[in-house]
């Protein structure tokens, strides 16, 4: 393994840790609020290792939502990683199955974004080394900050409303996700329907809101495409 490429991965991911660390703290705090102990919280961060889905699942677990709804919600949130897997797969095709499995386990938004940019810019990069530099760093920081969050979360009074940090993290991810007309429509409709459906039984508001939002985005594609081509 090329050590220089590994170190380059670590260096490239360093600035992103400023966003990941508070996210991990919040995941730990949310786990403590949901009634998980330190082992369960860190166990979740190791086994699932996908922040947004962990936070949503913890919120639902804390409210005693049906476990099928918890699982379905987490899976829907993580579906976006299908796109990353498909996009990065050609660069991993020559590796052994065991290596592929290890790299897949470590796949995150940040590891995908940095690695694909590096692979496209430079054909000679040691793909595994660079990827591990990014992904292992993220993994270690995620586990440490989750644990720190649990310890912090159990010591802070409820009145401080630390659980409010969870939607704030999602908000910071939502803005770049609404990158064009149809995705903005998907967000606005999905959010509004989820607010209207907040009282739905089984905590289904999130899933209903997200589904309607996806349909709204698809429906918005056609008229917006017409507008876009008119300009050319």
């Amino acid at each position, binding site marked *: 393994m090329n050590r220089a490429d590994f170190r380059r991965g670590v260096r490239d991911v360093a600035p992103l840790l400023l966003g990941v660390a*508070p*996210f991990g703290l919040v995941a730990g705090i949310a786990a403590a*609020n949901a*009634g*998980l102990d330190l082992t*369960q919280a860190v166990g*979740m961060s190791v*086994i*699932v*290792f996908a922040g*947004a889905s962990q936070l949503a*699942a913890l919120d639902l677990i*804390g409210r005693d939502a049906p476990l099928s709804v*918890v*699982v379905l919600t*987490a*899976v*829907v949130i*993580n*579906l*976006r*990683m*299908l796109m990353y*897997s*498909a996009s990065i*797969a*050609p660069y991993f095709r020559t590796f052994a199955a065991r290596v*592929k*499995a290890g790299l*897949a*386990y470590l796949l995150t938004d940040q590891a995908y974004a940095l690695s694909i940019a590096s692979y496209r810019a430079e054909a000679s990069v040691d793909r595994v080394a660079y990827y591990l530099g990014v992904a292992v760093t993220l993994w270690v920081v995620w586990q440490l900050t989750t644990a720190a969050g649990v310890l912090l979360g159990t010591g802070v009074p409820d009145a*401080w*409303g630390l*659980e*409010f*940090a969870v*939607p*704030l993290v999602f*908000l*910071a*991810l*939502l803005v770049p*996700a*609404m990158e064009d007309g149809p995705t*903005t429509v*998907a*967000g606005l*409709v*999905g*959010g*509004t329907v*989820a607010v209207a459906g907040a009282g739905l039984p089984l905590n289904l*508001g*999130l899933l209903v*809101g997200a589904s309607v*939002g*996806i349909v*709204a*985005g698809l429906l918005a*594609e056609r008229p917006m495409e017409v507008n876009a081509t008119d300009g050319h």
Partner: protein
Amino acid sequence: MATSYADPLVWGVILVIGVLTFAIRLSFIGLFGYLDEIPPRLERPLRYVPAAVLAALVLPAFVTLEASGLAADKLVAGGLAALVAWRTENVFATMAAGMGTLWLVRFLVLPAL
């Protein structure tokens, strides 16, 4: 907020989410050669998953009903944080603005009204 699910159930749900998430991650990486690209019928809706899901998580947390009516502290803090998120696209700045405003409204403004 603490769950009433027993420990084995909590571990079970963590494990199931973990296995399914790993399957999603491995999907194309593991099957490349058999399945080279996402079918268009799946790819189009996938494009809207992040925005729709994230918004469905965010908005209900900002617009919440309490016994006394709309929770003003969360609404104001969420609104201001949205402005910061839109201008900076920075996780840390968004959290600082949202939590700072929440505490300001909850501990200083609302008690003074």
